[in-house]
């Protein structure tokens, strides 16, 4: 009986910890998305040049690689995650401004924004409600990312529009898979740090939005 009580107690503790990670992740994700949106509006207002996007993303990702892992277990991690997402949002404003100046630009940006929201909410809702373990997708997602990175590296110099389209489509699929993977990691206790979880989900949303912008920009600018 004692063993059973302990087992139930441990299970309740685990469930409580999991729910706390999920709640904190979505709260922090909402806050970082709002902050990122505000920074995008600021860069739109300041009319920053397009290269700001590349520089902002590089600096933010370097912080994600070198600073975030060292601070994610302390309260300083919160400042770092806001700095990263703020920088990425600031860079995004430069790209949005470029698309807004294209024919059908406002429609393209609106659809990309709405589409990203629908994809993220749909996939997160599915992973949370089905409670399936999608950790088996880890190998596929990380191998896919490696392939995508090699393609991105090649296209920095080749600049082939068809390859750009293929990369954007591949990123949407991979990032959608990553949302399922990351959400199920939180549900099943594979991810216990809400700052890391927020960073992963934020990057997925960011990449889906940028990829959708590129795809809709290419197809919408045909006429």
């Amino acid at each position, binding site marked *: 009986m004692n063993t059973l009580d302990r087992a139930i107690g441990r299970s309740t503790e685990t469930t409580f910890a999991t729910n706390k990670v999920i709640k904190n992740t979505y709260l922090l994700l909402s806050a970082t998305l709002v902050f990122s949106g505000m920074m995008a509006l600021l860069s739109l207002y300041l009319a920053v040049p397009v*290269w700001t996007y*590349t520089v902002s993303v590089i600096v933010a990702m370097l912080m994600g690689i070198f600073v975030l892992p060292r601070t994610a277990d302390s309260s300083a991690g919160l400042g770092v995650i806001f700095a990263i997402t703020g920088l990425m949002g600031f860079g995004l404003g430069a790209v949005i401004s470029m698309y807004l100046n294209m024919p*059908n630009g406002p429609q393209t940006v609106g659809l*990309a924004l709405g589409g990203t929201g629908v994809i993220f909410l749909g996939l997160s809702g599915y992973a949370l409600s089905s409670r399936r373990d999608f*950790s088996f997708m*880890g*190998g596929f997602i990380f191998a896919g990312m490696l392939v995508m*990175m090699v393609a991105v590296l090649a296209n920095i110099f080749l600049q082939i529009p068809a390859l750009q389209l293929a990369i954007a*489509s591949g990123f949407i699929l991979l990032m959608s*898979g990553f949302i399922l993977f990351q959400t199920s990691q939180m549900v099943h206790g594979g991810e216990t740090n809400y700052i890391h979880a927020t960073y992963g989900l934020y990057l997925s949303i960011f990449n889906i939005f940028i990829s959708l912008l590129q795809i809709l920009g290419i197809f919408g600018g045909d006429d």
Partner: protein
Amino acid sequence: MNIWLQIASAAFVGLLLFFLYPAAKHWMQNGPKAKKGDWQAAAIPLLLVVGFVILLIAMVR
């Protein structure tokens, strides 16, 4: 794109590859294997995403 920006971007992507490779290797070698029905459960929402993106493309054309 400015040549220096291209070089900086390429160096950065190379760095990402360097940091991503161990994680990819770990997940490919030690990650849990799919059970029956697992891939089907993942493929359905991903196919819905593909369909949704095609719908968005049709809306801008």
